[in-house]
């Protein structure tokens, strides 16, 4: 039996590609604890020098929105919340 079936927990991996950029979700790894998760993340997701910093977090610690309720959450478009909704009066000139 593979070790993951016996319960190596899953960790989500976030990699920061360069100084000044944000950490971006790269994927996930199985690992026995935080330190080995970091190492696995380094080996799996930064093999080609993709990053300067890695975060890992237990997947179970991530609270996610329900994809089945996406419309409730995100489908209610309010075009007036975008600045492009408004016409700029001529008197304002260029903004």
């Amino acid at each position, binding site marked *: 039996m*593979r*070790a993951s079936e016996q319960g190596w927990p899953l960790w989500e991996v976030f990699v920061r590609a360069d100084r000044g950029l944000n950490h971006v979700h790269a994927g996930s790894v*199985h*690992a026995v*604890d935080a*330190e*080995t998760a970091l*190492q*696995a993340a380094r*080996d799996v997701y930064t093999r080609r020098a993709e990053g300067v910093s890695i975060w890992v977090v237990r997947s179970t610690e991530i609270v996610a929105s329900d994809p089945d309720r996406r419309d409730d959450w995100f489908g209610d478009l309010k075009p007036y919340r975008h600045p492009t909704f408004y016409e700029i009066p001529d008197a304002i000139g260029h903004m």
Partner: protein
Amino acid sequence: MTTTTTTPLITFLLRTADDNLVLAQRLGALLARMPELEEDIAVANVCLDHLGQARSLYAHAAMLEGLGRSEDDLAMLRDERQFLNATLVEQPDVDFAHTIVRQFFVDAYQVPFYDVLCGASDPVLAGIAEKAMKEARYHLRRSATWVVRLGDGTEESHDRTQAAVDLLWRYTGDLLALDEIEETLVADGVLPSLDGVRGVFDATVASVFAEATLTLPTDPYQRLGGRAGVHTEQFGHLLPEMQRLYRSHPGARW
């Protein structure tokens, strides 16, 4: 094939290259057989680091030798008695604990070893060592972490890891042994002194084993001889498998 034209530096390069090549061969055989996908990728990374170190060292040895041999010739056309690796790296992968303990001993040695080599008077060797040093430091972080996880893990993981230590410790002397080759290189100013390597190795092993609740065998026996080409039985199985393709199809390319 003879190795009559040699110098202490070439012998030293071959010893170090052979350590890395034989370990890479062992690790390469584990691909797709590790307990997790993540460990499979990790072992591939470590394997390729060692293979890369071996290639650079062979290429430099071949250049200094000046006999027209290539790095491949040195790796694939020498016979068992001409291989100068420490017997530790040829020991088989009995289980994951053996793989990790063998790797840990190599890493604990290579970090201070390459640190010394960074001060070599030969700029190519110093350059190879500088790159290898970064790799070795990462390897040590990984293997030491695993030694602690396994040693201080479950009863079974502890027992298996202690069994690996009890078996493999006797081959570490081969890794650390210094003879007239190193003495000559140090005396000639080619290398800084290697005397400090063993102390750093011992300190690393002691601190990691303390955390891992592992103990060193009380039996002081050390099996030496690899640096002079006297290998263990395991090597007789590894070498033909590694060299078969190259010897069966001389000059093959892919």
